């Protein structure tokens, strides 16, 4: 939203963006403009075996901002977000073409360790998945395993405060996390990612299994996390995207090359996507005429 200039599709904007290496040198100014890219995705296609799931996606995800991925089911949003921290690697016959640069590093280069990738790029899933451990241990487990044992209690408290959960659980840290409500469990999962000082939070429909009140608390949380983290969120809920996101990417089906596959239709500032979309398909979707 702080981007200057007329509403335009990001490919055009991309043309004026400096490369990530250049961005590092005068990072402060870039950050102010919200142009500093954490992810630079170019021409990415994803295949599961012979089936093409995602076709030729290019976009830049700005640092310390919230980027929402919207669109109908089955058009590759989850596939795309899971490709950003290599969670798809465990899917049999997964294949990715194109390039995903993370702070200028090729995420899929042969010398990149996917465990290290996920340590920096955390992910929260559709269904809350706390470990069957205490609330404290859920947050402390990963830092302990990553050698961040110094002042663990403070780390856990900071993470739980960061996830707006501390006041609700501070008196029962030793209780099982499975006793928390769905919304609390989801915030606990976010706290886990904060505790390892992740750089990016990928949220794959984090509120779709929650009631409206829990959803509101997650959205509030995202606003408070903005600035500290780069956040990418997949959502089915367009109002949610409009409320929380700075940038919005609209995914749809592209049937132009034979078998239909998901692809990026339009990517721009959230306001632009919802008020002056350039593509008629985006307009149909955001006005509720389809999907």
């Amino acid at each position: 939203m702080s981007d200057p200039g007329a509403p335009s599709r990001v490919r055009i904007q991309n043309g004026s963006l400096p490369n990530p290496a250049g961005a590092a040198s005068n990072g402060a100014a870039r950050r102010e403009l919200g142009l500093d890219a954490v992810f630079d995705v170019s021409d990415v296609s994803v295949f599961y075996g012979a089936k093409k799931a995602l076709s030729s996606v290019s976009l830049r995800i700005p640092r310390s901002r919230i980027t929402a991925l919207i669109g109908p089911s089955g058009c590759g949003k989850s596939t795309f977000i899971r490709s950003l921290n290599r969670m798809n690697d465990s899917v049999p016959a997964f294949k990715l073409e194109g390039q995903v640069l993370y702070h200028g590093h090729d995420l899929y280069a042969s010398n990149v360790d996917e465990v290290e990738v996920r340590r920096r790029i955390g992910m929260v899933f559709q269904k809350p998945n706390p470990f069957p451990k205490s609330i404290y241990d859920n947050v402390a487990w990963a830092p302990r395993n990553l050698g961040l044992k110094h002042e663990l209690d403070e780390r856990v408290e900071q993470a739980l405060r960061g996830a707006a959960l501390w006041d609700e659980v501070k008196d029962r840290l030793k209780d099982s996390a499975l006793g928390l409500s769905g919304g609390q469990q989801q915030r606990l999962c976010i706290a886990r990612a904060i505790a390892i000082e992740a750089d990016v939070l990928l949220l794959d429909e984090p509120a779709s299994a929650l009631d409206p009140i829990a959803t509101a608390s997650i959205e509030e949380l995202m606003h408070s996390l903005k600035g500290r983290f780069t956040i990418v969120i997949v959502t089915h809920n367009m109002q949610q995207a409009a409320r929380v996101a700075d940038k919005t990417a609209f995914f749809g089906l592209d049937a132009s090359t034979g078998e239909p596959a998901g692809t990026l239709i339009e990517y721009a500032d959230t306001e632009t996507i919802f008020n002056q979309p350039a593509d008629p398909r985006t307009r149909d979707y955001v006005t509720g005429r389809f999907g």
Partner: protein
Amino acid sequence: MSGAVVDPAAPLTPTGNLRRRRVFSRVAEFGATGAALFAVAVLGIVIYTVVVRGASALSFEFLVTGAPTGIAPALVGTALIVAVATAIAMPLGVMAAIFVTEFAGNRVAGVSKLTLDLINGLPSIIIGVFIFGLLVANRTQSGFAGAIALAIIELPLIARGAQEVLLLVPNNLREAADALGVARWRTVLGVILPSALGGILTSTVLAVARAAGETAPLLLVSSVFDGKEVLLNMSEAMPNVPVRIFQLSEEANPEGFAQAWGMSLVLVSFILFASLGARAMHARSRRKMSS
């Protein structure tokens, strides 16, 4: 043709060949019920016979003295042999199960499972002959050789049982741990094994119950003893329950028969209680995991 047409207004009582089909269905149902009752009856008759004939031999003295009045050496021997066998088979079995469920690809996992099933299907006398040729021929019988033979019998039971419970551990826990940048082995130790522990212990107890009664391998590798004293040296043949039952039953001595029945009662009680206890434990851990 006219026979095939049913008058919709006719009374709803059986007509034509429905009567015959009814009779046939009844006969089949009775046959199946009878077969099931027979199976239960076999177990009942075995337990009844063992209890009736063995109860008179039971006494405190019977359990704590050596031959000719008691069976203490055999009990101690079996406990030692089975304990060492389990100490060998449990870590191997659990590691094999972890390999199959957490690390192996589909094809390797299939081959591993098939191998374990084949070992499970090996007649125990074959395992006895194998260990006899490997460790006993040209040397001496030993409790240790017996333990290794029993370990081979326990291994597939523990491995397959552990595999089943590891597969019950929800996949989203693995994803959660992956997304925190924790290496898979740490995840296995910290999240997956604790969730599966109950089931793993259950299958181990079942394997112990099975091994405690195995006779054939021990006849070959640990059968030369008089049963008078408790022996603790595993590098020599050790008295044990199944072989002692066999010896006493072979002798033309009515007192020996009574003792053999008494030992059988002790063995059957142990196996029954171990199996039932293990099942109860399994049901509990399943409930815990699904909640």
